[in-house]
């Protein structure tokens, strides 16, 4: 067992990462050791990243131990870049974390300054000159080779022609150097995509009143609606983030069936969602910011005002669907879809609701429906007695009740789609009616004398 990470006090005792636990115990008998939990670290870092989203929506994980915030244009909201850094640092210290922060024009320089420069605010690449070559993070070998060549700092490297470096250490090192010197810029990949539209409210004092949450959310939505209206858009996916002062971030996502801009409808969905939360929106020590992001938008034409001021039936219906989605979840409000296939398992399916015009195949002639109203998925095995091995069923048992077959039609032979599943056996479907008039859809899986397996009977659906 070896030490992976050590506290400041441990470092002071000379316990450094890489040391074996036995050695550490020998040096300091009362050392407290906890098993390394990389998953837990990852989770903690992710939570911290969510918390940092109060400063900027562009937060990226810089695993394993860093966070990268793109604060372009955000500084003035917190009283300048330095104030922002200090606020962030103070908050992290309150959480009991030791952190170093640096601000620089490129992500690479910011990281190097945080790790090797003691945390500074750099305006340009000149700040990189004083850093040691280790700031290149190009690997132990490269660092050693550079040091042996007498190149101690990034400044030393910057003076050399780059083709020599490239020839000796590869193009990666040169690129890295260019980024440190701010000659080349890169973008960070944020944890979440940048929302289409974002409004937020920061509170100077933590906000404690659970009842008043709606009074904050409603004006936020009105504000967002104004922005969306100017663009001729409506939101399809909203996300409300509640930043608690103890670092917890609660996110409530609201999805709608049609572009939405009306504050009233939005608040109704929000109430439904909020009362359904397993863990209620508890302000705890107070929220210090609430943010509404509109993640997905769609064009939404200007609503036509009806002369009588009434609500259009269509609008009413989309609102009802949104409420259903908020209650049951998107995957439970469904519409029927048609697929162009003969495979009864796939011919028709269900998908999250939207207005559709499915290409349903034309009926075959005749009075009786050929497909059951209710499909049993997956098909249920049933005990069937047939008079001939390849004939229709004479009687069968389903849910312990015996059904004597009075009428039967079939077989309708459905071969499996060999390009999907070559091993699936052929199915012979029968429409069957029992003596009471109940109508069933049964199939026999596999063929007699051809397939080695014993054919079995399954119930696949119920007709009206």
């Amino acid at each position: 067992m070896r030490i992976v990470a050590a506290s400041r006090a441990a470092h002071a005792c000379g316990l450094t990462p890489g040391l074996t636990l036995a050695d550490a115990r020998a040096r300091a008998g009362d050392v407290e050791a906890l098993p390394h939990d990389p998953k837990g670290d990852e989770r903690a870092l992710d939570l911290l990243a969510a918390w940092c989203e109060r400063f900027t929506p562009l937060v990226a994980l810089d695993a394993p131990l860093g966070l990268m915030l793109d604060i372009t244009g955000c500084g003035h909201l917190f009283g300048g870049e330095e104030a922002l850094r200090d606020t962030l640092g103070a908050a992290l210290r309150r959480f009991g974390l030791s952190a170093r922060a640096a601000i620089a024009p490129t992500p690479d320089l910011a990281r190097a300054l945080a790790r090797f420069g003691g945390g500074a605010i750099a305006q340009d690449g000149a700040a990189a000159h004083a850093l040691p070559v280790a700031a290149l993070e190009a690997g132990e070998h490269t660092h050693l080779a550079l040091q042996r060549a007498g190149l101690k700092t990034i400044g030393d490297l910057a003076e050399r022609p780059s083709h020599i470096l490239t020839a000796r250490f590869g193009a990666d090192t040169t690129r890295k150097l260019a980024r440190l010197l701010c000659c080349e810029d890169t973008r960070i990949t944020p944890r979440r995509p940048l929302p289409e539209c974002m409004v937020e409210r920061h509170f100077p004092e933590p906000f404690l009143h659970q009842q008043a949450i709606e009074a904050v959310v409603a004006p936020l939505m009105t504000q967002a609606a104004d922005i969306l209206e100017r663009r001729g858009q409506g939101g399809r996916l909203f996300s409300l983030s509640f930043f608690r002062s103890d670092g917890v971030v609660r996110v409530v996502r609201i999805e709608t069936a049609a572009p939405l801009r009306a504050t009233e409808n939005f608040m109704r969905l929000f109430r439904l969602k909020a009362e359904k939360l397993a863990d209620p929106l508890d302000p705890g020590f107070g929220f210090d910011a609430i943010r509404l992001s509109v993640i997905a938008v769609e064009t939404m034409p200007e609503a036509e005002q009806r002369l009588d001021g009434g609500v259009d039936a269509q609008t009413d219906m989309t609102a009802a669907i949104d409420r259903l989605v908020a209650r049951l979840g998107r995957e439970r409000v469904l519409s029927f879809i048609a697929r162009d296939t003969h495979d009864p398992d796939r011919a028709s399916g269900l998908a999250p609701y939207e207005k559709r015009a499915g290409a349903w195949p034309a009926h075959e002639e005749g009075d009786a429906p050929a497909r059951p109203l209710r499909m049993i998925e997956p098909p249920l095995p049933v005990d069937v007695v047939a008079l001939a091995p390849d004939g229709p069923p004479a009687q069968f048992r389903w849910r312990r009740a015996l059904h004597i077959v009075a009428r039967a039609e079939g077989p309708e032979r459905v071969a499996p789609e060999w390009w999907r599943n070559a091993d699936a056996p052929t199915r012979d479907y029968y429409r069957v009616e029992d003596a009471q008039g109940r109508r069933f859809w049964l199939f026999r899986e596999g063929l007699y004398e051809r397939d080695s397996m014993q054919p079995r009977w399954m119930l696949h659906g119920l007709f009206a």
Partner: protein
Amino acid sequence: MNDFSPFSPGRLHEIHAAGVDCAAAFGFSVAAAAGVSEKPVLLVAPDFGRSEAGTPSGAGLHEYGLDPDRFIFAAARNETQALQAGLEGARCKGLGAVVIELWRGASGYDLTASRRLALAAETSGATIFVAALDTPPAPSAAQTRWRVAPALSRALAAQAPGAPAFHLRLERDRSGLSGQTFDVEWNRALRCFISRASRAGAAAAPLSGFVDALSAGRTAPPAQSFSEPFARTG
């Protein structure tokens, strides 16, 4: 709107059936629900019903003669959610009808719940059908209460099952006329229920001379036709 349809719009109608006859109750309810208007129809079924009797199928609805694109299916987790979702639907003016499936002595569906549904339906104009399976009838605010069982169909060639046939009993009707029974079959081309007695009598010209009183279409039958075309068997 058709005054003489047995399903007055904007009201609550109960359709009772045994659990094994779930598909018949479902077939009867969707046909009735699709018939009261041209607007979309919301189907609500709890997970229990889906595991017991299968999931409603688009291809099946289409083969039954209805347009699957008109239906919205809300898959509720349990009975409480099904009633909640049904109530949301009942409050919506954009829906023509709501079909709510309830199973096994639905305890959440009591007088209060049915009143709530009936009130919502009256305000919005949507017609509510509660398909109650294996549920003993209890006092409710429903306009009508039907008992549905499948009936042996008229066989097609080679003893093939024919058009869906139902045995209906109108157990209760607030506007009078209860206790009748009807033997009907569903005609998917005309989208209406046809009395089997009249159908049998007019085999040569099946369309002339009969009136579909249980019309699921929008044609208004003559005033006296409601009870006439059905053979009173009970």
